[in-house]
């Protein structure tokens, strides 16, 4: 993984000193809350319903064991013993004290981490495929470019006061696990005519109150032009993005109102002036960064692992987990292991300090000391020998991280909702917990198969409900919580925005409604169809009939 050099380290150290000064000015009353707000937001510090919330950047979701231990230590010492992994592959702490936050940032800096630009109207954490570098279907490791983007976008002098926040995602594989078409900018690595690699550039996707699947504005961008092209997009957006209405300020609205063709034209025109200039990274710098992502020293192993197969035959629970939570690794004899942060009845994405420490130990023993955070709020050990899987699984079970539900009905994305968030209209977490309990029977979950439920507590859609196979949106009406259901959304390479199925359900009825949708699918499915396949074949009518027939 990328390691800081003296420059990277100097910047985060200086940033800690700067923020310490800002907090001191706030505590001394030299800054009003209004004046302090943009400063704390540049450092990931929000004021929520009950307390401050600190969001820590995990660049493209990659952590070392030492970093994970430091996150655990922060959870214990400065918070209430847990942290919450987010859909931007970050972690947030819900109960820090303002006066402690400079110390927390100093703790982070000591392990090459920070909270820069995890909030505010600037670039947010660049996200990627959680299987980057190890996926069998990958063209090239996208993390090299994520790191290049991270550096370029850090404290960018021109783009720190954009109309609105800005999110970039990069994938190196045709199977999109990073939801790139739902980002302000999405980049997909492609091969050009001569076999060279570059990027398809997508602009103006997004969720929130007006969801869009982003259009492609350039089919192929050679890699050397990456930063100049991004800067051209940003310069167009910074000047022309709407600033009159918070809800219309994202670049997707500019793309929607001006049209993708017009935006493409403006970007290309701006780019014409700045390409082949100072933003072309020197080849030796790209190589320096690439070297940090060199594959770990894999052993030469046989693809067939009889001992692993034998364990699966002998131990049904292990087999279920292996069939559900593992993914194909590009190196023979290795597997990608998903650690579910969605235990039945738990809070999606939460991990205790003890779990974090244990995961750090397991990463060191079994996966070259690295951990990834997924945008679906789970963790990944990416490089595990198949022969180690059984013992790893037992250890994961001991710490509650072996729930075999990856991609199943209880692997739910949920925003913090009204339990924490000042913007929310309704609670998300309890709905996720109740759905988890309703489908607690794992056999039933496996029979239902791949099904992505995503829950947001308000229209800002932090829980990605628009792209849930089943999406749930919390609403508030006369002091009561209601939940609107959408069907047919998808965040992968066939990205789609879900359709509202009908009137919202009360909190009491929403879990029954989800179950009705699931049962309808089970009755209608043919030949091993997944939920999303059946929905695309039959449309929303059969579901609507069943849901509202009784009324």
């Amino acid at each position, binding site marked *: 993984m990328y390691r800081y050099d003296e420059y990277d380290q100097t*910047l985060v150290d200086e940033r800690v000193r700067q923020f310490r000064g800002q907090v001191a000015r706030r505590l001394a009353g030299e800054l009003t809350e209004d004046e302090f707000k943009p400063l704390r937001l540049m450092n990931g510090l929000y004021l929520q319903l009950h307390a401050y919330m600190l969001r820590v950047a995990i660049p493209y979701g990659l952590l070392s064991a030492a970093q994970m231990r430091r996150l655990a230590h922060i959870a214990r010492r400065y918070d209430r013993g847990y942290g919450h992994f987010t859909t931007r592959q970050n972690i947030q702490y819900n109960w820090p004290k303002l006066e402690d936050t400079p110390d927390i940032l100093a703790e982070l800096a000591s392990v090459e981490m920070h909270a820069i630009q995890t909030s505010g109207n600037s670039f947010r954490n660049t996200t990627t495929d959680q299987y980057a570098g190890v996926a069998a279907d990958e063209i090239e490791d996208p993390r090299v470019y994520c790191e290049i983007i991270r550096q370029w976008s850090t404290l960018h002098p021109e783009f720190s006061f954009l109309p609105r926040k800005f999110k970039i995602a990069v994938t190196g594989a045709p199977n999109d696990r990073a939801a790139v078409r739902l980002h302000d900018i999405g980049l997909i690595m492609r091969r050009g005519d001569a076999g060279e690699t570059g990027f398809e550039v997508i602009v103006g996707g997004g969720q929130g109150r007006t969801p869009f699947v982003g259009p492609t504005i350039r089919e192929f961008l050679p890699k050397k032009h990456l930063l100049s092209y991004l800067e051209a997009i940003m310069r167009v957006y910074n000047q022309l993005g709407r600033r009159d209405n918070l809800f219309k300020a994202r670049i997707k609205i500019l793309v929607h109102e001006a049209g993708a063709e017009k935006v493409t034209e403006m970007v290309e025109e701006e780019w014409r002036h700045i390409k082949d200039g100072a933003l072309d990274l020197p080849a030796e710098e790209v190589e320096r960064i690439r070297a940090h992502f060199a594959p770990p020293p894999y052993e030469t192993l046989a693809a067939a692992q009889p001992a692993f197969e034998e364990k699966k035959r002998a131990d049904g629970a292990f087999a279920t987990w292996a069939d559900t939570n593992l993914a194909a690794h590009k190196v023979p004899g290795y597997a990608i292991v998903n650690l579910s942060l969605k235990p039945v009845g738990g809070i999606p994405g939460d991990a205790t300090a003890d779990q974090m420490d244990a995961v750090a130990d397991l990463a060191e023993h079994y996966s070259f000391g690295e951990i990834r955070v997924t945008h679906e709020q789970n963790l990944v050990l990416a490089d595990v020998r198949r022969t180690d899987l059984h013992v790893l699984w037992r250890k994961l079970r001991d710490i509650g991280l072996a729930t075999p539900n990856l991609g199943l009905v209880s692997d739910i994305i949920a925003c913090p909702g009204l339990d924490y968030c000042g913007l929310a209209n309704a609670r998300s977490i309890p709905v996720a917990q109740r759905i988890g309990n309703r489908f607690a029977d794992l056999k039933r979950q496996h029979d239902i198969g791949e099904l992505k439920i995503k829950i947001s507590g308000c229209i800002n859609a932090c829980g990605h409900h628009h792209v849930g196979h089943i999406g749930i949106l919390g609403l508030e009406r006369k002091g009561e919580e209601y939940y609107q259901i959408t069907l047919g959304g998808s965040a992968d390479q066939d990205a789609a925005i879900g359709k509202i199925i009908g009137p919202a359900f009360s909190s009491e009825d929403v879990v029954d409604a989800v179950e009705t949708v699931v049962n309808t699918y089970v009755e209608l499915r043919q030949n091993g169809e997944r939920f999303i396949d059946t929905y695309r074949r039959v449309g929303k009518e059969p579901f609507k009939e069943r849901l509202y027939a009784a009324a």
Partner: protein
Amino acid sequence: MPLLKDGVLVDDPWVTVDDGTQLPMDGPAMVSLERWQAHRDELLGRNAPLGIRLKSDQSPALIADDLDRFAVVALEFPVFRDGRAYSYARLLRERYGYRGEVRAVGEVLRDQFLFMLRCGFDAFEVRDENAAGQWREAVSEISVVYQPAADSRTPVWALRHRRSAAE
């Protein structure tokens, strides 16, 4: 309003003339884009330095062909969150090669000085007399830059390889 240039407070010789107001006979005067567009000949006939003040929705592209007429281009920040002028300043310096004064006016806060300086601003209308002390701190507290801009700071990716080439 105090004016900060090169880190020190200086007397501001410029008068900002509202659109309805008579132009002073002599002395440096700053006018709006609207006045410039409506009274171009009259303004050029004045035998004194001319400046222009652009609102945050007025790109310097609108005056790109006339930039040598202006000794100052002032760019407005109606609120600190409105970041359009950062792009305008870079365009002035890097696209149009403007060498005169680029002045930040409006809500110009201490914690924006460094970004503004990097984008090519070289004069700042500030709220209070303490700004000079704040300035020194604000522009030196982060020494590392990751991207080229309109200033002379060298991005770290160039520093890294300059160093390894020397070794």
